[in-house]
């Protein structure tokens, strides 16, 4: 059986490289009975279309940043609540706490979760030094969803909507002056050409999830299921390590590019924590009992 696996990010991105290794592992583990071809760079389907494509059987398997789908179900945004889980370790616990609920929601959508790998933690980019929320007043902040808009609102920044394709140009021309993203994004887009400061506030660690169509999954033999699950476990562990390694690599890269990179000052951190609590409360309202269950399970750990 040949499985086409669309992935949204470029072939050299660590998620894509990890996915390619997973595909190889599956080929070997199933003795070539299931042969996965990865299609990176959104060359088959764009990121936004991949989940729907798997759901409707257009492709058997694929990778997607599920927090992009929070409008559909707030549970998908569990990994993007600002300042709820702010380290690889905490984020791993949050993922574990959320997994049963997430799998349940996905099952309703004809999807089976295979493995999840976090992106490096999200930090704040500015074109000047910022030590407190007051310093952020009036800065033009790139927002791309409701949460980032709300973050801008709570910090007194001006949210500006800039599509991904125009990020570099927008920073170069001053249409935007700040964004929240991982060190990796800034490194990949070489934002030091326009921005000067990166604060490691580790606001959240969004996950990429590799999912398979449930009907396809049901048709896989038990032996092959076991082989694929084993590969998925390896991929999750390897992906986590790659993400950690890449975090340091990109932070060094940002420094080398000439940016000031470092932890945020105490005042900024505590002010942001407060905003985080407000936003967690708001997310819990949207996510209802499911959200409360996830956060309670996470905090109990």
């Amino acid at each position, binding site marked *: 059986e040949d499985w086409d696996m669309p992935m949204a990010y470029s*072939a050299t991105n660590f998620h894509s490289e990890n996915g390619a290794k997973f595909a190889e592992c599956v080929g070997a583990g199933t003795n070539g009975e299931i042969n996965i071809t990865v299609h990176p760079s959104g060359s088959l*389907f764009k990121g936004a279309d991949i989940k729907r494509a798997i759901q409707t059987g257009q492709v058997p398997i694929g990778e997607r940043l599920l927090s992009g789908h929070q409008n559909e179900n707030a549970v998908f945004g569990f990994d993007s609540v600002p300042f709820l889980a702010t380290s690889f370790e905490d984020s791993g616990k949050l993922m574990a706490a959320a997994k049963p609920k997430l799998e349940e929601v996905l099952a309703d959508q004809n999807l089976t979760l295979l493995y999840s790998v976090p992106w490096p933690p999200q930090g704040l980019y500015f074109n000047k030094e910022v030590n407190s929320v007051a310093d952020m007043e009036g800065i033009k902040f790139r927002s791309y969803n409701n949460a980032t808009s709300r973050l801008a609102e709570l910090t007194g920044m001006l949210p500006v909507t800039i599509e991904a*394709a125009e990020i*570099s140009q927008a920073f170069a021309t001053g249409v935007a002056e700040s964004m929240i993203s991982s060190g990796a994004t800034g490194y990949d887009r070489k934002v030091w050409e326009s*921005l000067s400061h990166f604060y490691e506030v580790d606001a959240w660690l969004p996950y990429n999830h590799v999912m398979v169509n449930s009907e396809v999954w049901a048709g896989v033999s038990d032996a092959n299921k076991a082989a694929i699950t084993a590969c998925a476990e390896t991929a999750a562990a390897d992906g986590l390590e790659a993400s950690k390694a890449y975090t340091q690599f990109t932070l060094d890269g940002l420094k080398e590019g000439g940016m000031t990179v470092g932890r945020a000052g105490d005042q900024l951190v505590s002010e942001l924590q407060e905003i985080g609590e407000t936003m967690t409360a708001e997310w819990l309202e949207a996510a209802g009992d499911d959200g409360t269950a996830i956060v309670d399970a996470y905090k109990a750990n």
Partner: protein
Amino acid sequence: MQEAYVIALFLFILFLLLGTGVWVGLALIGVAYVGMELFASGPTGDRMATTIWSASSSWTLTALPLFIWMGEILFRTRLSQDMFRGLAPWMARLPGGLVHTNIVGCTVFAAVSGSSAATLTTVGKMSIPELRARQYPEKMVIGTLAGAATLGLMIPPSLTLIVYGVTINESIIKLFFAGVVPGLVLAGMFMAYVAIYSFVGRDWKPDVETGMSFADKMKNSRFLIPVMCLIAAVIGSMFAGIATATEAAAIGVIGALVLAALQGSLNWSTFTESLMGATRTSAMIALILAGAAFLSLAMGFTGLPRALADGIAALDLSRFQLLMVLLVFYIILGCFLDGISSVVLTMAVVEPMVREAGIDMIWFGIFIVVVVEMAQITPPIGFNLFVLQGMTDHEMSFIARAAIPMFLIMVLMVFVLIWFPELATWLPDNVRQAPG
């Protein structure tokens, strides 16, 4: 062997449908359908719907109808006529005369728009009728327009460079800077060709503008002011950081409407005609884009471009040989795919090859853009040919033939880039943006 069979079949269906006169967009859908049914297991139609929706609803696409609309307004009011009235007395005596306006116009407009179709329709809508009225050889009018409009991809902003930069993680700003000088050089080469042709071309018999005194020329130049202001407003809004590229297109439309109103040539009929004309032209392009997106998806599922790139990787070539093979490879691919699709479908395999050969990735981006520019004017699937056919009613074969000299100039440009790599690398290496 499988590949050879796939290629033969794709080509047969493509030429059958296009050649018998099936509308281009629908013919592409037909080719992609056959390819998907034969070589990809799974639901063809649902995949098609996903792809067509995503290709048609893209936000970055919205600049296209706006620029087309701006061109329609300039054309249907007297604005474009005026611009030529201002330009003609100055340029008529130059070798090549007013044909240079095609190239200069495209170069200027390329700095506004990231796409070649928008550049082509806007400039063409204004220049074709004026150049025809002055009896310039049709082939030169059409050919230079087809060629020069591709500068929209090289001179920043450029959609192709954005996609390339994102695909291989290189700085988009550096790529943009890298495109400036080669873009101007290429424009210069087009102009040199026009100048030479004006001496040797047998059909070169344009109407000579009657001699004008310097004072009259100056007086006539006031006709240039409105359109120049418009261009300045569109470009300026982007560089001043008050508008993104798409928003600049909106400024262009509003500006054109305001100018036309000030001039008294805006009325209900010019407004609705320009609007309906723009709607139909952008629908024509959208149908082809939808078909091309589906074909590109089919190529992705068959794995054909990747298999071919893999084949090149296995050849183990020297740097120059590799560039030559890639040149031929992308020219052939460009006959059938649009530039962005060929980049996205092959870069996963081509990037490591090129990096391993020690080729500068910024420089290679400009190399790719020149090659992708050629794809715009090579039959059977060349967007500029389609757009020009829509605008002029000429057969595609006529337009493609008229564009051959431009194609050859672009091939020459590739060698110029290989001989003088600094053309692409000097500016990005030396312009360092001060952070903050």
